[in-house]
């Protein structure tokens, strides 16, 4: 009942307002693509009143409203008729697909309040949201009264990554953002990108702008220059600002107090071109150094690559060129990737590789190393498998790429082409390729624990003392012996003459018996005994020569020696020869006695 009453009151109020005919209409698309911008337009045929916007769904991102009012005054047959209207435009982007309801908006005047219809909108899932898909040629639109993040015209350096490894490529671009009409750009000054190696990507000259909404503000954007940066040093690297002069179309007339918005400038005033300088903000990029230790076969390649190798032929003639090709494929700093080091066998002449980089616009592409090889010797040569380390910044580690090696068979007769020429074999110095320690010894070795050094033990030194002691003992014993021997010899020496005379006396006694031989033998024995005792020669090894030599050594007269010789000869001769010849034994005895007397004088 109460509801009916309110409805009635509402109806009456409407009727009352017909004079004014206040209406609130809403225009919105039936459907829209998710992520794409669409407009909701409210139109009110009145200028004075309070518009209260609808409560939009939270998933709506709303910009605006862009409000405009118009007033028409008509004079018809003296009657004045005023038609005024207000338009409010909301720009809405809905991210998630679904069916949404736009609730009713309210408009209140002093007399009446009206509300709009509710509207259903279906948001369909579209492709990837394409910002600024609608290209508005020649006209730069600015969205409502959303404040610009910077000024009306700005420029930015955009990098795809701000924290990279040294050598890892960064793609970047210099982009222009504008909310106003521009008629051109001049004096583009790019920074020198200190610490980077910059490679420009071919960019079409800026002819048209694309619309893009950033933080609720619509901008006309355009890429001025695309490039790839390869950091060369590590650390925080600052990119200095880039500068440019833009030609701004500026209104010359006085500004309209109501439409103080650049959007309307183009409609209501004549424009002139004014140059304006813009710069970018300085940037810093954090470049991390490549981790240590770097593999020995790392030559500066950073990125993700694959590697292949091929050879033009494996069965070749002597002195015919062979090409070995190594292809590095992938994305990364291809230009800065050094050539792989291949240890070609000696006997094959190697030339520096021909390097070709085929880059497909950005940093991905292929790099081809072509090695020209000329075999100078026949035989089978082994080109070892190739290993090439690259740093993968995504995996943050070194990856070793491998490619197969080849076996090249070289046939032909050496020196064929020079057969006519005189044979000259130039000597060649031995090539030293590197330096390394010599290899270990794997032969048998005697592993023994070392015994204590003898010199630090006491018993070793005691051996010396013992040896010395024994030697002294031996010496003492021997000395004693010698002394004793010397004593007996001395006794015999002293008694030599006496003994000899005794023998001679016995010989004289034998004379009477007439045994001539016995007498002579006794004389000889007396002499020999005397000589042996006196000269200290044992009877066993006594000879005439020894005695004579000894006598001469003792300064005996030669006469004496002759006499001795004669007596000895006579006595020995008479022993074995017939008795008739020679001297009488008595005379011999006498002579012997005289000689001993004489010798005794000399020898004592």
């Amino acid at each position: 009942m109460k509801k009916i009453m309110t409805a009635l009151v509402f109806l009456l109020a409407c009727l009352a307002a017909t004079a004014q005919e206040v209406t609130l209409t809403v225009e919105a698309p039936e459907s829209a693509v998710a992520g794409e911008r669409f407009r909701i337009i409210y139109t009110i045929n009145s200028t004075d009143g309070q518009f209260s916007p609808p409560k939009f769904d939270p998933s709506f991102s709303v910009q605006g409203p862009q409000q405009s009012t118009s007033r028409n005054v008509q004079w018809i047959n003296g009657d004045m008729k005023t038609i005024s209207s207000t338009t409010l435009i909301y720009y809405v982007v809905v991210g998630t697909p679904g069916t949404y309801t736009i609730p009713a908006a309210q408009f209140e005047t002093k007399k009446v309040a009206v509300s709009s219809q509710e509207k259903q909108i279906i948001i369909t899932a579209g492709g990837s949201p394409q910002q600024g898909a609608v290209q508005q040629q020649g006209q730069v639109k600015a969205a409502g009264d959303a404040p610009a993040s910077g000024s009306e015209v700005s420029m930015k350096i955009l990098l795809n990554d701000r924290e990279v490894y040294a050598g890892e490529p960064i793609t970047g671009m210099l982009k222009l953002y504008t909310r106003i009409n521009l008629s051109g750009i001049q004096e583009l000054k790019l920074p020198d990108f200190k610490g980077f190696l910059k490679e420009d990507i071919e960019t079409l000259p800026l002819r048209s702008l694309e619309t893009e909404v950033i933080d609720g503000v619509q901008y006309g954007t355009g890429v001025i220059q695309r490039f790839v940066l390869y950091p060369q040093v590590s650390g925080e690297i600052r990119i200095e600002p880039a500068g440019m002069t833009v030609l701004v179309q500026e209104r010359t007339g006085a500004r309209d107090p109501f439409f103080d918005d650049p959007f309307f400038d183009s409609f209501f005033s004549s424009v002139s071109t004014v140059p304006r300088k813009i710069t970018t903000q300085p940037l810093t990029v954090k470049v991390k150094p490549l981790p240590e230790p770097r593999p020995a076969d790392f030559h500066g390649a950073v990125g993700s690559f694959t590697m292949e190798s091929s050879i033009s032929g494996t069965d070749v003639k002597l002195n015919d060129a062979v090409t070995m090709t190594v292809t590095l494929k992938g994305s990364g700093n291809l230009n800065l990737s050094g050539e792989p080091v291949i240890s070609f066998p000696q006997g094959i002449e190697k030339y520096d590789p021909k390097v070709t980089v085929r880059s497909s616009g950005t940093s991905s592409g292929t790099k081809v190393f072509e090695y020209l090889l000329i075999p100078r010797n026949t035989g089978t040569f082994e080109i070892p498998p190739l290993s090439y380390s690259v740093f993968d910044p995504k995996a943050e580690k070194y990856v070793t790429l491998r490619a197969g090696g080849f076996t090249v068979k070289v046939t032909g007769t050496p020196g064929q082409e020079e057969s006519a020429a005189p044979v000259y074999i130039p000597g060649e110095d031995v090539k030293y390729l590197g330096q390394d320690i010599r290899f270990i010894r794997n032969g048998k070795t005697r592993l023994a624990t070392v015994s204590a050094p003898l010199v630090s033990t006491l018993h070793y030194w005691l051996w010396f003392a013992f040896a010395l002691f024994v030697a002294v003992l031996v010496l003492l014993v021997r000395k004693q012996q010698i002394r004793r021997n010397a004593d007996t010899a001395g006794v015999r020496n002293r008694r030599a003459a006496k003994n000899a005379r005794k023998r001679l006396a016995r010989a004289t006694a034998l004379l009477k018996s007439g045994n001539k031989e016995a007498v002579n033998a006794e004389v000889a024995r007396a002499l020999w005994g005397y000589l042996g005792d006196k000269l200290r020669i044992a009877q066993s090894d006594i000879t005439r020569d020894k005695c004579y030599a000894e006598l001469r050594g003792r300064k005996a007269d030669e006469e004496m020696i002759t006499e001795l010789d004669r007596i000895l000869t006579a006595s020995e001769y008479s022993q074995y020869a017939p008795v008739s010849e020679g001297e009488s034994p008595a005379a011999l005895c006498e002579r012997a006695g005289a000689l001993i007397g004489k010798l005794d004088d000399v020898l004592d």
Partner: protein
Amino acid sequence: MRRILLIQFVFLAGIVSLAAQTPEERYSQAGGLYGSGDYSGAAAIYRKLWEEGFRSRDLLYNAGNAFFKSGDNASAILFYERAKLLAPADEDIDYNLQIARSRITDRFESVPQLFFVRWFDFLALLTPTNIWAVAALVMFLVALVLALVFLTKARARGRLLSFWLAIAAMILSFLMISLALRNNNLVNHNSKAVITCSIVTGRSAPGETGNELFVLHSGTTVTVEQELGAFREVRLPDGNKGWIRSDCMEKI
């Protein structure tokens, strides 16, 4: 399950065989590891053998090589120096030592030893100390016998000869004793040490308070002059002296 058992069995067998290995087997095992590129594994085995007291020129030479290849230059130099004491005339040791020395940081204008000291040391290191010692004893006995001949053989014809020979043998014996002592000194009481810390400061007094005099890097060979607490006074190859922590060096 069976596989696990099998693995365990193999593992146990490995341990058992490791325990039962003779030093020669471990030596050749280390050689195999070196050949296959596991330098630090080979170095560990060589070092263990050395610590157990086994000595051989080839063992120390190989240990030096293994340490060099595994990047530990200081230990490589240490073991080459030790090998050089066992075989001063070995050309390979000299060559590798020279290469290892070329990779260290510190460079010195070293004062060369006097030539006769060098020759004497070289002679002393030609054979182990005990061989010199035994030879000296034998030579002493020969000298004594010759002396006895001289003293007892009165008027014998070789008397003079035996006298001079006895003198010569006695001199030789004393020379050999001094060589044995020198060898023992060089090998067993060496005062040389190799710096093992990558960087160490030499100070003017033992302790952390002395004035800083110099900075040494690993691989430098110094001569230890005296020891006080945890510090040693060392003499650098150029003649300067300073105190360094004992745990930053290893004696040859």
